[in-house]
């Protein structure tokens, strides 16, 4: 009896409900890659629909696809499809759902995209206000002149 049950649970399906109401049916072993979901299941064994209040359906779909397909090749191409806003939202999702491989993949991808950019560009990307005084900023630019050379034009 116990054997049958464990066989059944490996193909057991779970429903994840995104913040905008979109529903996703996933296999248990896929859902378990999201440690947040795993914790939910550990707490309430009989649950069938798990709410994911912080993640839009659009991003949850991408996350689930990543878990299914992740390998070295897939990861290398994965981030190229998304724009900067989506990458950040995906990072928030990966962080909330606690999927470590995806978090690292996304952090590296975002870093790669800003590596050669100007501070102005970076402020826009992350929605950060410049609270350096003009004198402070000028001082930094002068002291580290070499670090500002060869930067992509915005």
């Amino acid at each position: 009896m116990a054997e049958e049950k464990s066989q059944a649970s490996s193909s057991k399906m779970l429903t994840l409900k995104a913040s905008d109401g979109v529903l996703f049916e996933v296999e248990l072993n896929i859902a378990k890659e999201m440690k947040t979901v795993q914790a939910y299941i550990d707490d309430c064994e009989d649950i069938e629909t798990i709410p994911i209040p912080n993640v839009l359906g659009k991003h949850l779909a991408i996350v689930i696809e990543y878990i299914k397909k992740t390998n070295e090749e897939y990861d290398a191409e994965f981030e190229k499809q998304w724009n900067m806003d989506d990458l950040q939202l995906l990072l928030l999702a990966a962080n909330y759902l606690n999927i470590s491989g995806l978090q690292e993949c996304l952090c590296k991808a975002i870093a790669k995209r800003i590596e050669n950019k100007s501070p102005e560009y970076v402020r826009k990307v992350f929605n950060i206000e410049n609270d350096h005084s003009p004198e402070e900023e000028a001082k930094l630019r002068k002291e580290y002149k070499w670090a500002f050379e060869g930067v992509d034009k915005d």
Partner: protein
Amino acid sequence: MEKKATPFLPLEMIIQILLWLPVKSLIRFKSVCKLWFSVISDPNFANSHFLLAQTNSTRIVSISAAPPQIRSIDFEALLNDGSASPNPNLWLPQSYFPLQMKGSCRGFIFLHCSSNNYLWNPSTGFHKQIPLSPIDSRFGAYFHYLYGFGYDQSRDDYLVVLLSYDPAVPAHFKSHLEIFSLTDNTWKKIEDTRIPYRGHYYYYYYPKVGLLFNGAIHWLVTHHGSSVTVIVAFDLMERKLLEISLPYSFVGHHCVSDIGLWVFGEFLSLWAMTDGIVEIWVMKQFTVHYSWTKTHVFPIGAIPYFSPIYSTKNGDIIGTIDGTGLVKYNGQGQMLGHCSYCDDPRGSQVVMYTESLLSLPGDHEQV
């Protein structure tokens, strides 16, 4: 009035992204805002950044002789697409040349110049003068010098170690051991019982730098009395010399054209070149003599002056070709690729290093 809904990442996630950036970008991004300035200047951030860089991105710095040219090259990029995209922003004062790179540790490279030594961080441009040792100042070019540079974690101290001797063999040969501690900011002589080591025969022609491994600096030396080649290791924490014998199957090699020490994976490794064939031994258990194991023997064909320096995660062996390029072999001795990074046919000095934002102990306004 429209407010654009832009994603806003919390600080912990921004830091996770920043950890993957090269030093040049991080220094530039200090000007993004005050919070980023303080995060990037924080020694804990520098430490986490260095640890990540250590396992993920090794670089080499190549300095060619005259005219002096300095390049910093990303190892992985060089081998994967064969193109050297050197970092052009490297600079050292003209007065430093001619110089020799004599060690690399935690992003700092030890430079030996004629009237001074320097610690140099190629990622940030920082450099700090260190005096020549008393023996180096006194005997200059009359002596031979075996340098090493490392880090003593127990004291958060960087050490320069120097084994020097008079090569014109006197009756009572002895070598001198001096160390420079960055926190003490002074050279000290280590009075050991008579130190009988001299540079190995091949040091004459291809002086090699002390290998930093497992908290100790290792050199291949010859025992003056017996003329036996051994490895001598200076433990940076214990501040003591210890001798390690070479593998039995090496002893008695007379036609060796070159030998050296390097780190293969997690192990101390000895390589020897004889008639175009490379042999590699690995010490599976550090300091345990019977654990020396010969792991590779393969011909390298017409590659001149091959010297293994690095092994990849899947056991491929990367070596320099006389400081003009790199070549990569797999575990079966098949050449997987090669590339060139230096135009000067006379070659260049090459040292591996990791980018770092680390500061030297006692220096606060560094980066």
